[in-house]
């Protein structure tokens, strides 16, 4: 099952066999089960999957934000700018958090501290990592608020989170992440909680900020639309594992793994004539109840006996593409199933 990735020299971040376990009343579960991927400098990788597939947890492992009862297993390795984050002493890890790698969370309402003003929370990042005085940190915070598109930033900086709108609060989060110009941005579903119009603005803001600083970004989302617009490469996660990885255009053109194919089919396309969207039968099984072999087998349209016996490895397809499915070795089975499916619809 181990991936055969060789760490490309210029990768900013590379995860190898990252595994996270939780001890619960019903025994040990591993919601993140051997995840590996790389992000090159300046590149945006989208991590896609339905909720509960472990993508947010994976993001949290990068800055070691997993707290009890969760545990990052020994075998995992996370290399950030050549150093393994999991073995870093606390002081060094803290100097990376917020300065070299910064995170943006999904729910702006609860992610900002309700009793400190927006400006204070941004200034805190500056004062934590630099010797800046209080007033210097404040001016940089106000400047940053302006940079993320907040009007009259000096007034807004004094306001508390509950006095700001959802979009504005997320801009504060983004300002907090960008203020020290990190080389890696980790955005955990940054726009899910917002209305579509604000989503587009924030995604543009993120992309411009990223390109301006040459930073790379790990974008966690379940919205393929966001993926298409913002990411260069995509990794699809299902039941704690990466099931397919590919450049964006290649993935949208010809998805290899049946799950990716299902996701694509379930996405409404402008101009398509189909009235009903095809859905993937069944639901994502909870971590404790994953099928033994291929975890997608019970919902896969092409599944055959081998899928329920032998767990498919992550096949390398060349051009940076991978797929965790036996169809790679027996493409013929894909053709037959599509025919019957076509006839039925």
């Amino acid at each position, binding site marked *: 099952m181990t991936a055969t990735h060789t760490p490309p020299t210029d990768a900013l971040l590379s995860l190898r066999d990252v595994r996270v376990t939780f001890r619960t009343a019903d025994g040990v579960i591993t919601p993140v089960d051997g995840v590996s991927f790389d992000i090159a400098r300046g590149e945006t990788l989208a991590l896609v999957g339905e909720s509960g597939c472990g993508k947010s947890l994976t993001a949290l492992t990068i800055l070691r934000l997993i707290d009890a009862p969760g545990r990052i297993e020994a075998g995992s390795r996370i290399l950030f700018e050549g150093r393994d984050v999991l073995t870093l002493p606390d002081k060094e890890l803290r100097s990376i*958090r*917020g300065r070299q790698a910064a995170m943006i969370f999904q729910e702006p309402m*609860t992610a900002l501290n309700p*009793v400190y003003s927006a400006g204070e929370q941004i200034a805190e990042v500056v004062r*934590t990592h630099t010797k800046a005085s209080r007033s210097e940190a404040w001016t940089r915070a106000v400047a940053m608020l302006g940079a993320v598109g907040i009007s009259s930033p000096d007034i807004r900086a004094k306001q508390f989170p509950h006095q700001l709108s959802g979009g504005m609060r997320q801009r504060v989060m983004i300002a907090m992440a960008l203020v020290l110009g990190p080389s890696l941005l980790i955005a955990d579903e940054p726009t899910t909680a917002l209305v579509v119009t604000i989503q587009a603005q924030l995604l543009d803001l993120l992309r411009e900020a990223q390109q301006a600083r040459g930073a790379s970004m790990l974008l966690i989302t379940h919205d393929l639309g966001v993926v298409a617009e913002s990411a260069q490469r995509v990794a699809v996660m299902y039941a704690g594992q990466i099931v397919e990885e590919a450049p964006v255009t290649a993935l949208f053109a010809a998805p290899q793994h049946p799950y990716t194919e299902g996701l694509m089919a379930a996405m409404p396309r402008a101009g398509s004539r189909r009235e009903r969207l095809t859905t993937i039968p069944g639901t994502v099984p909870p971590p404790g109840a994953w099928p033994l072999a291929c975890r997608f087998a019970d919902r896969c349209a092409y599944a055959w006996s081998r899928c329920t016996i032998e767990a498919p490895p992550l096949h390398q397809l060349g051009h940076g593409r991978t797929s965790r499915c036996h169809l790679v070795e027996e493409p013929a089975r894909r053709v037959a199933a599509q025919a019957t499916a076509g006839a039925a619809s």
Partner: protein
Amino acid sequence: MHALIQRIWHGFVVIALVATATFVLVRLAPGDPFAAALENARLTPALREQWRAAYGLDGSIGTQFAHWIASLARGDLGFSTSTNQPVSRAIAAALPNTLLLIGTSIVIAFMLGIWLGAVQAAGRGGIVDRCIGAITLIGNAVPDFWLALVMLLAGSYWLRLFPVGGVADLLLPLGASWPVLLLDRARHLVLPVLTMVILLVAPIARLQRTALLDRLGAEWVRTATAKGVARRTVFRRHAWRTALGPVVTMGGIALPSLFGGAVFIERVFAWPGMGRLAAEAVAARDYHLVVGCVLVGTVMVVIGSMLADHVSAWLDPRLTQDGFEPGRGLA
């Protein structure tokens, strides 16, 4: 501003309600102001009736209430028959002592309670957490008078460290320098305050611990960690700071029981405060003094709870309406 005016109006209504109810209730109790003194004096009922008339304590409750309201309008709380002085002077003598006792106790109990709650939350589920929990609870489970007596006997009799009750050593020569007087006051304050703190610290520590555990799981704590802020700072600035609100709000609500609880402590430690003044006034059927004490006590409570709401609103700006965090009742 509107909210403040409304609060004051609510406070006024509460005070009026309590004062009227006490005025009537205390007169319904059998016995009269001059009966309690010397049980077999030749103070025949006829003489007592004459004395009651002299101090305006005869006649129907209605007329007495009218007289009292009229004198209240002039700022006169009436005459105290058991302490033979105007009620206002008796209260003016007692109130500072109670504020000193309760004020010091609250400050220390809150600081100690908040700190213990934090220590418990930090070491959640561990031995320290359990021990502190049990010890503070025992302090809360012991009857007030019993604890007061044990503290008195231990502190001033077995250990001979502290004076036996009282507010100050009044036999000190008048010319004594202020450090001597201050030290004397402090020595008198130690045992009663220690007793009250032991009684108060358990509920504060428990609530602080629960509120803190709740806040430690909050999103913004994780954001702060992700910003690279040091663990201790995250705990203090981001978790603890937001967990103070409910504790302060509870303080405001628990004020009345402090005045009540002080009855035991003020009696055992011979502390001339409001609790003892009111209890002795009730025993002596000193109608005007009882109503006076309750009136001033309620004003203190109303001011106290308003203060507590302001502090908790300052602590947590989200509390805009009436001091309760929407959606999150008091644990």
